[in-house]
């Protein structure tokens, strides 16, 4: 490869929206490695990766939804509901583990596509209203179904799914890599992936070009539901129980990860490639701060500051920041500003 070509590739990479996040991730990683001797141990890196696995799944699913210009507030409570479903499949119905996992994934897929997907894609109701409604609805169902009690799910194979190693990496890491590569493939190398971007870029232009917008939306909410269910499986495996208490805050962290990864609320721009960096940044921050013995609320404070700064930085890069500031800061509308010459 010629030097000029490498330089061009490097420039293209630097122009990616998640570039700042990548730099920040590297800096944080280096900082914790140097200051905390317990950070860069294999045990802790395993904990960092497995600790991020639930956010990873939800954020990748949410990326597809946000690429179409939508949002799904209900993913956290769908996660909890899928966990309870899995507990029921295994404990009450006696379904063997493999089938129980497949049934849980199918449960998430069906609930996501048939409830949110149909209401938003087919009936064209506003996504915030629909998913706010289903968020509340699923939480209620979770309490009713579980009797608000955590039920142990005992299976050695399931525990192994969360804590065993294979080929030098923890099993959750392999699942995360698999899901990521599959999502990347779907996003970049299928016609469906193009539809997702087309719908997010301009619903009307996509529709006029023959793209089946409704099907695309139903599929996208189904995928998000299925990945929330996969997150539920990992959650049940980690804590060895189906708990109604999980999933509460995950949607906000997932939204932060997706935004940090360069996917915008408006849709049509970004992708799962950036999202995983957002997840790793949040995961590193959480892990590193807890290793450093910093109180957990500092993590929230720092995450908030990073999220707003990265989005502001992105705006500045696009050149849209200063005019906005000027408009916001000007107190008196009306008198023309004399030109400075």
């Amino acid at each position: 490869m010629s030097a000029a070509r490498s330089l061009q590739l490097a420039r293209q990479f630097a122009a990616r929206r998640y570039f700042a996040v990548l730099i920040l991730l590297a800096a944080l990683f280096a900082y914790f490695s140097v200051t905390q001797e317990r950070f860069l141990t294999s045990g802790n890196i395993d904990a960092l990766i497995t600790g991020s696995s639930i956010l990873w799944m939800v954020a990748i699913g949410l990326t597809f939804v946000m690429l179409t210009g939508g949002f799904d507030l209900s993913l956290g409570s769908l996660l909890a509901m899928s966990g309870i479903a899995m507990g029921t499949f295994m404990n009450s119905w006696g379904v063997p583990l493999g089938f129980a996992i497949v049934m849980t994934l199918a449960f998430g897929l069906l609930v996501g596509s048939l409830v949110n997907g149909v209401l938003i894609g087919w009936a064209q109701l506003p996504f915030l209203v629909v998913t706010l409604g289903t968020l509340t609805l699923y939480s209620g169902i979770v309490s009713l179904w579980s009797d608000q009690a955590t039920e142990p799910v005992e299976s050695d194979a399931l525990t192994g799914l969360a804590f065993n190693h294979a080929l030098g990496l923890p099993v959750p890491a392999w699942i995360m890599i698999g899901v990521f590569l599959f999502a990347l493939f779907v996003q970049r190398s299928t016609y469906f992936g193009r539809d997702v971007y087309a719908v997010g870029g301009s619903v009307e232009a996509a529709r006029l070009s023959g793209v089946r917008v409704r099907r695309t939306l139903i599929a996208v909410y189904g995928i998000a539901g299925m990945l929330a269910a996969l997150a539920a499986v990992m959650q049940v495996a980690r804590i060895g129980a189906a708990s109604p208490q999980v999933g509460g805050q995950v949607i906000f962290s997932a939204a932060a990860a997706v935004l940090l990864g360069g996917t915008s609320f408006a849709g049509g721009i970004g992708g799962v490639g950036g999202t995983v960096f957002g997840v790793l940044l949040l995961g590193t921050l959480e892990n590193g701060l807890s290793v450093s013995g910093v109180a957990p609320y500092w993590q929230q404070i720092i995450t908030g500051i990073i999220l707003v700064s990265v989005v502001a930085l992105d705006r500045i890069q696009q050149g849209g920041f200063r005019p906005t500031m000027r408009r916001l800061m000007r107190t008196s509308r009306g008198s023309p500003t004399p030109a400075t010459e």
Partner: protein
Amino acid sequence: MAGAVLQARGIEKSYGPVKALRAVDFTLRGGEIHGLVGENGSGKSTLLKVLAGQLTADAGSVFLDDRAVRFTDPADAMAAGIATVTQETTLVPDLSVAENILLGPRKPRRWWGIDWRRTRQRAQEMLARLDLEIDPGVPAGSLRPEQQQMVEITRALSMDARVVILDEPTSSLPDDQVANLFEVVRALRDQGVAVAFVSHRFNEIFDLVDHVSVLRDGEMVGGGPVGEYDRARLVHQMIGRELEELSFEQRPAQDRDPVLRVRGFTLTGRIHGVDLSVERGQVVGLAGLVGSGRSTLLDGLFGLEPEALGSVEVDGAAGVAASPVAAMRRGFGYVPADRKRLGAVMDMSVRENLMMARTSQHSRIRRPQRARERDQCDRAIGDYRIVTPSADNAVKNLSGGNQQKVVLAKWVSTAPKVLLLDEPTRGVDVGAKAEIYKLLNKVKEEDVAILVSSSETAELQLLCDTILVMHRGRVAASLSREEATDARIAYYGMGHK
């Protein structure tokens, strides 16, 4: 004559690589109606938007009463006494006509707040000045397009502005309202107001304005008192050459079954029993005012209006398409007028846009074949002379003309039997316009039936074998190319029988 009120000097403005204005000087004097003419894309609207504070120039200065000003916001310009009417409607549809006319802080107040009774009264008076019978209490969105345009004009005139900018205010107005408007504009001039006026209709320019300026490709190429101009000289300055006879071979009417045959096409309240037919390799034009139903008819044929009634036959197979997908299956392609919202997905690449329609019916879990796509895109980029650094460049980075070529190529690649086009050269520069015409001629030679709607009469006269003039959702007249003079099209378009 009074002195210069608003003056622009050395204005430069670029949109990406496209230079919209190059070192343009422009002066509006009090008590004078200044006509600004030029082809679409020559920079008229850009210049007026800079004066009205809707755009910021890259270079150059604007002077108000010899004092340099820089407007960063339309409100700045408004407060300085510059009122504007643009082609796009800026009314708030859910607010009443009165609120729209006295938008913002101009509503009469009393100590406890807005005085709604006097607001209504004031609006009523303004409307009466223009002889308009519009109830100031109804929501602006409920008015017909031409009434909305008049409300927009009323608002501009009600501002007691020192400068009034009218950018194609007459494009959707019926004759009698144009006459009322002109009367009011003349009255304003006599009070010493400076008026800028843009129109594509030469008779309006010669009828109304005192002074004329000509823009071509972003440069001010001429100007002077309107008395020094006649039509030929004006056209010559506008296009920079004698009007070239770009002519298209006309297909003799052939005695065979048409590809597209529409009978009694109806959309309740909007389109009333339209009949038309288009033969293989024939171009049929739709003329008529904005709001006459031209675009709605095309939308309906392409399946965007599910409640459409009537019969639409393509190659003998009857049925009304209920969705774009159904319309595509029946052999339709549609190049819509709103390129940025409907024509292409701006954030996606040229390749993805070119492929979007022709691959839209493939299995969604299939993998696009990169090598074959690259070949097809390279060929389209070559054939259509699309200027882009690569097929992976986002469409939003292309000039308007090249964007339009992408949309056209996207549809031609689906091998349609019937190609529908709405305003195929809107917002496209002069060079690209001629290229698009040549491309359409090629499409026509491939035996595609073409139905094109346009508000530019000259475009229809150039392209079409037959021109249908629409008025209020009906076909008012069907004219052959020889019969279709400007006067006849305008006459039927106004609703005369």
